[in-house]
């Protein structure tokens, strides 16, 4: 029953909703990329990063992800994002 007629162009509101869902989808990718940054840090004798700095970085990323995700989920609720929205 959920097969909806799809038109080429969406209304502005629907368009915003879909881009919002896109952002929600991208969050884990962004998080993974940010948390992959430590892989680039130098190790061994040639200086490197102190644990305290690493700790602050990791937790800042974490905090940022939590806040943005919380905001997005609230936005999604008010924008009435269709739960059944598929790709698009």
């Amino acid at each position, binding site marked *: 029953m959920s097969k909806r007629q799809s038109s080429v162009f969406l209304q502005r509101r629907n368009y915003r909703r879909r881009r919002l869902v896109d952002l*929600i989808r991208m969050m*884990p990718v962004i*998080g993974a990329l940010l948390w992959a940054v430590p892989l680039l840090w130098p*190790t061994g004798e040639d200086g490197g990063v102190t644990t*305290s700095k690493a700790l602050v970085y990791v937790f800042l990323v974490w905090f940022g992800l*939590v806040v943005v995700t*919380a905001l997005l*989920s609230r936005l999604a609720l008010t924008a009435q994002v269709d*739960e059944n929205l598929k790709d698009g």
Partner: protein
Amino acid sequence: MATLNILVAVCLIYVIFLFVVAFAAEREARRGKGGWLRSPLVYTLSLSIYCTAWTFYGAVGYAARSGLEYLTIYIGPSLVMIGWWWILRKLVRIGRAQRATSIADLISSRYGKSNLLAVGVTILAVIGTTPYIALQLQSVTLSFAVFSDAGSTFEALADQESTALLVAMGLALFTILFGTRNLDVNERHHGVVMAIAVEAIVKLFALLAVGVFVVWGVGGGLSETLDKIDASKIGMWEMRGDRWASLIFLSAAAFLCLPRMFQVMVVENDDESHLRTASWAFPAYIMVMSLFVVPIAVVGLDLLPEGSNPDLFVLTLPLATGNEGLAMLSFLGGFSSATSMVIVAALALSTMVSNHIVMPIWLTATGGGATVSGDVRNVVILARRFSIAGVVFLGFLYFQLSGGGTALASIGLVSFAGVAQFLPVLLGGVFWRGATRNGAFAGLTVGFMVWAYCLMLPSFGPGVLIPETVMEHGIFGIDWLRPYALFGIEGMDPLVHAVLWSISLNSVVFFLASLIGFPTPLERLQGAQFVNVYEHTENLQSWSGSFAQSEDLMVMSQRILGAREAQILFESEAQRQGVGGYLPEPSPDFLLVLERELSGSVGAATAHAMIGQIVGGASVSVEDLMAVADETAQMMEYSSRLEAKSEEQSRTARQLRQANEKLTEISVQKDAFLSQVSHELRTPMTSIRAFSEILRDSERLSEVEKVKYSSIIHDEALRLTRLLDDLLDLSVLENGQVNLNVQTGDLGALLDHALASALTGAGSEGFTVRRDQAKEAVALNTDLDRLSQVFINLIANARKYCDAEAPALTIRVVQNGASVLVDFVDNGSGISKKDQAVIFEKFARVGEMKAGGAGLGLAICREIMARLGGSVNYLPGQGGAAFRVIVPRTLRKAAE
């Protein structure tokens, strides 16, 4: 000192408190109250069983040994939760739509409800979880030991095992009490969920308290603590990239695949929208949980003597600084972590074991099936209770065997890598319709073999389960089969090595085996159901509100009931609800009405499935489809019956049409008859009138003329009378009202009489009659008067119409069984073929040439013969007009 006694007392009080919480939650849920039981907050907190004693104690030990690597264990799940839109949303939807009771149930359900697969997954889950339960028991035992060491000397370490046993028994009891209270269709356990939510708060609070105490109480503030961290032996970022990446992947995979996580995340999920809250709240929770781990580790390394167990810093730090109250709180936090994990894991595993192993065996053993539906529930509950006890006992056994020596973190990672083997099968099943059961089976088998060979068995230490020679030179001396260097690739971290090979081989085999094989119909059906779950189900609580549902319902109803009827139905329902317009609230009452309406059109099962699709709840399951199929079969039977009926009806219609044609024909005949009769009556009447007028009006008529005219009138009147007599006779005969006067007589005498009557008067001279008197000696028992009337008519006709020079009539009598044939054959020109068809009809006269008869004679003859049980027919090919009369020798009653 009484510390240990106080500890035991606190433990008991805490456990009693948990009992009360669980009991109260159960009661609220049973009363249908307690909406707060199903809040997103409780859901998020219940997810925290991911943080076990491994987190509470082990993370600090992990950090003390390997620096920031412990963070990977929490980063993975955070990413999964943040990316809930991708996987978790679908998993929860599928789990609810399919009413999955466990991860084994879900996987088996996806792959054609294969119980073999379910058994496999269950066994692997038990193997993967048992070390983990042992880990929890170990941590509780260790923490007890810490207190006994610090408090009193007479508590020997030998008591560790009895402590572990006691804890195991207590946990099993708790799980049995609240996990198997009722056999809920949805497998939800409000009491247990509430208890673990409370425990989640306790462990968070405890760890935070210790952290705050360490940073600000011992460490001297935030910046000082950060300096201390940099100055410690884990002060530099020395992470191996491969371990960082693969551990994040591993923890993310395990988060999805752990049976206990599946239990709280999917099975106990009350509302899909809770995921939205949990998507940020749970990462926040584990972020806070892991926030103080490094400070505690560093301060512990700094303050506590060399060689003290870093796994217990959370406990020993407050104790060492004389903070027994905080130590007690910390102990409760660890206790909470351990107990909540064991309870949920035992619950999840016991569901799997009882549903997929015990029950099938029991059902086969008792030969039951549908016959034992009544008491199966008790058996299930009993099986589940025994399974819980069994699972917890297995954990205890593992703890006892392993001796509790290994560091907590390594046991945890081995376990994680084990359950992560479900990942390819799970994701493949959810996103790829081509995944097959055989592929799943092959992939899982390969993955677990590699895992066991490369990680699990060697983890017991060199030479314990795998001989040193195998470790050094590979199995059977094959070099490239060394457990830590498969395919000869050396120098990898053993864990990374095992995860890499097990997961990739698992995935490849799963993929290839799926490609090669061909799935069963049920597999394909379920595959479509899983992969396209959003098309088959709607969320219970739609974001766009309930009117959207009403609209969907309207669209569907219009399609099935017809636009007008659907609108009327919806409008009247909206009026009943006091809502304007066409869209009523989709209340249960209305849905019931609508379903009933629809089932009138498409059948009950289909209607149910259709409404279910729109409103949510029960989606189309295989059972539904089977029911639809059943109903379709019934429909087909019904329609074939209809077909038979319609054939019968068309037959009747044909008969009716024929009858109608006959009636029309008869009506035409009747009209013709009437006009004939009026014509026949009119002719004599005209002459009677004319001659009577002449007699009345003419004065001078001679006597001769008077006599002439009067006799004409008389003749015509006679003719009229004869005609009326004939008509009366015919109508009496046709209506079957004739009374037959049955007598016995001789045919010859009858013919004599008939000839005498017919051949009187003028014109009879020269008419020869040939007879064979000998054959005429036949005795007849019939209405002789009527029969003679027929004979007279036929003879008179022959005399009247025979146009031969020397007219002659031959009368032949032939006996034919029970009847006698009497043929009257003259030597005239006969009757043309066209006329043969009509001579027996009323007013049919051949040639219209001679007056005298009204054309009713032969019709009357035929009626009489029909009454007498015989017949009169024209006999063609006799050289003249020929009639055959067939008379039964004895008039049978049936002929009347």
